[in-house]
């Protein structure tokens, strides 16, 4: 690896680390912006991006070369397979092959909640999670008694077509095929990460942790049912969140590895819940999860999807320097007033602006946001949601990168 690439990688890592440690780095750390646009920029369909490993890697390398940032922008090529991660949480070596469902994996497994371009969707659509009710309210006690066994025996067969009958040869063949397919994917990824290293990006990635109530809402009961459960079976829901906490932590540890010391925590139900419900059902086990991850040597990067304004103060219950709060709709300026010096704040770029605005306006927009957020450090510039659509004007993207280059210096 060329010397300057190694040096560049070290600088980028230090920049991000300084922000997370609430200091002022040399420049504002910028995660870069991308998503479905990566495939469009390389002239391939989303289907090809999701199903052809070589084309996917080439598209990512081309995009990252033209739009360098502090983290490689690799787009979204699949969905979490969180029930499977829990069901096999006692088999850490399986984590890399069962934790995510990309296009080819879905062809093998047939996961009920997955929709992929070129399959259930048109070839330029993006992969989507469409969950439904996989667990009935009567099954709360079983979930509470043994979440891992329950997820394996009851839920997995309901969400994975290949596991409809766990005893059958189809289920066992699917596992073997999955490993063989993931090996192919792994080979392509290794090649891509080698090229990324040459472009000055240190290898690594993010582990994942799931807020216990989100796990129940997204993966088991479906959100509308879960919300009604809060009123009808409050004690069972609470007991369930405590029961699933331990295995969910085990999953996060399974994902830990060299260069993978941060757990990404995507929140979904936060925006749905009133403060009362949030504080009674959602926050206690999420908070305990973040604290336990810290004990396990992992920082947390919580993605507060939607509007988190009503629950912002609860973040102060965490120890200073606990990690990063990544905001989608909550105004980062408002968050900074409350959390400066306690929590590293991430976000700031409204994807809607990048899609609809003009290069000149975007230059002004970035200048203004950086002017307000950079002082005092503890800030990472990122898009409020991780996916720029295919038709996002390239000149707008370039304008953002140029503006960050211009105004990003401390």
């Amino acid at each position: 690896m060329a010397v300057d690439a190694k040096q560049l990688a070290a600088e980028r890592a230090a920049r991000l680390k300084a922000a997370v440690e609430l200091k002022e780095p040399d420049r504002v750390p910028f995660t870069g912006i991308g998503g479905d646009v990566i495939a469009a920029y390389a002239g391939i369909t989303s289907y090809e991006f999701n199903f052809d490993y070589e084309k996917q890697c080439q598209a990512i390398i081309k995009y990252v070369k033209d739009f360098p940032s502090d983290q490689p922008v690799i787009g979204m090529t699949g969905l979490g397979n969180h029930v499977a991660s829990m069901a096999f949480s006692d088999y850490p070596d399986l984590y890399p092959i069962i934790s995510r469902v990309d296009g080819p994996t879905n062809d093998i497994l047939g996961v009920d909640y997955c929709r992929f371009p070129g399959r259930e969707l048109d070839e330029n659509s993006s992969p989507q999670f469409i969950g439904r009710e996989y667990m009935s309210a009567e099954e709360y006690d079983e979930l509470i008694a043994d979440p891992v066994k329950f997820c394996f025996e009851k839920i997995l067969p309901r969400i994975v077509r290949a596991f409809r009958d766990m005893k059958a040869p189809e289920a066992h063949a699917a596992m073997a095929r999955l490993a063989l397919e993931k090996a192919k994917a792994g080979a392509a990824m290794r090649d891509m990460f080698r090229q990324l290293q040459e472009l000055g990006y240190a290898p690594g990635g993010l582990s994942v942790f799931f807020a216990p109530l989100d796990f129940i809402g997204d993966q088991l009961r479906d959100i509308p049912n879960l919300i009604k459960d809060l009123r009808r079976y409050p004690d069972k829901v609470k007991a369930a969140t405590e029961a699933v906490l331990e295995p969910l932590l085990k999953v996060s540890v399974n994902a830990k590895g060299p260069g993978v010391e941060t757990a990404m925590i995507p929140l979904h139900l936060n925006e749905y819940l009133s403060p009362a419900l949030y504080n009674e059902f959602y926050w206690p086990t999420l908070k305990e999860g973040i604290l336990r991850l810290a004990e396990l040597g992992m920082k947390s990067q919580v993605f507060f999807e939607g509007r988190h304004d009503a629950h912002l103060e609860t973040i102060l219950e965490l120890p200073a320097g606990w990690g990063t709060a990544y905001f989608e709709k909550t105004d980062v300026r408002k968050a900074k007033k409350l959390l400066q010096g306690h929590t590293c704040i991430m976000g700031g770029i409204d994807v809607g602006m990048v899609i609809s605005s003009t290069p000149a306006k975007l230059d002004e927009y970035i200048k203004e946001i950086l002017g307000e957020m950079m002082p005092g450090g503890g800030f990472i510039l990122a898009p409020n949601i991780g996916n720029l659509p295919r038709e996002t004007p390239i000149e707008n993207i370039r304008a953002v990168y140029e503006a960050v280059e211009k105004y990003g210096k401390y």
Partner: protein
Amino acid sequence: MVSPEMQKLAQERAARMQAAIELKEPDRVPFTGLGGDIVAAYAGITAYEFEFDFEKNRQAAIKWLKDFPADSPVGGIGGLDNLAMSVAFVDFPDLANQFFMVNGPMNDVLNMKFARFPGRQLDEYSSRQFIGGKNMEPEEYDELIADPVKFSYEKILPRIAGNLADLGSPTSLATMARLGMVKAQQAAEMRKTGAALAELGYPTGGGSTFAFAPLDYIGDHLRDLPNLVLDIRRYPDKVKAAAEAILEVLVKWTLQGKAAGAVQAGFPLHLNEYLSPKLYREFYWPTLKEYILRLREEGMRSRLFCEGWHDAHLDTFLELPAGWGIAAFEKTDVRKAKKVLAGHTCISGGIDVGVVISGTPAEIDEYIKRLLGDMMPGGGFILGPNVGNLPRNTPIENVAAVYEAVEKYGKY
């Protein structure tokens, strides 16, 4: 990259083998070469390393083939027959063949009841061994006959694979995933070995795939040989019906190997030596014969490795059309076989491993000279060891003596 000379050498070797198979006289006698445990010893590694470390295995094979070149490559990772698993997954063409040969790392994942590996169940210098056992009760013949695939999957697999004992449990599913991981790593290693062999002038295309006499499936993997021999007397009709049912599944399995590019199917024969001609003709040969003919219809040749004594059944080969394939003999004297099968069946073997172990270079030179003198005329002969495994401390000068003698006397 494969140099032009090596490409030419590969073509010559392939043509030499092909001519013998087509019962003609090639330029030189095709020689399969000697190998086995000695390949590891020659490279200074243990049997354990040879079975479990793909890189060391490859280096040992390359070192052996450079010093002892022959017409087909030797060495490389071997394994034990795991036919019950291939049958259980025969409806998954991309997998069935992958599960047939269980090597060291695969057995670490599966923990097969029949497997003994150096550095695991054996000391690190022992060779791997298949120890059959009784996995099926006589009362289960009807179930086997009704659906050999379902029976092999639901009843036999859990009994012979330690980590698949509880099908549908997290362990059994995790085991299959881990098997996939090991196979994926090995696929990459196989490609590397293939490339190395090509660079040493060995033909790569048109390989061989697996096949198995239906009755040997029952003997080796279901009832165990002694019990099957008794079953033949106590439940003759059930044994026959089982062989018929199994035939369909095994032909389907072998043709999957054809789809992957193989042009030849290799049968190891085990029960042949146990059976009187009468029992052989009534129970063993009919389904084996139909198997060979069905493969022939699909353009595939068969190679039968007749272990032990096959003298009493030599004439049955004549029921096959001339040029059907290769008969390799372990104990049957190839000269005796030639008298019966010349011009009809390509004969393989001839070198008694005992002589290579205990003879002197001079005796070996004479032995090979006489053997080639008797067997080469008329072609249709492939020289090779009667058993594929030379022990670790076979005197290397004896091995060299064999190769030199073949070089000297092998020209047509």
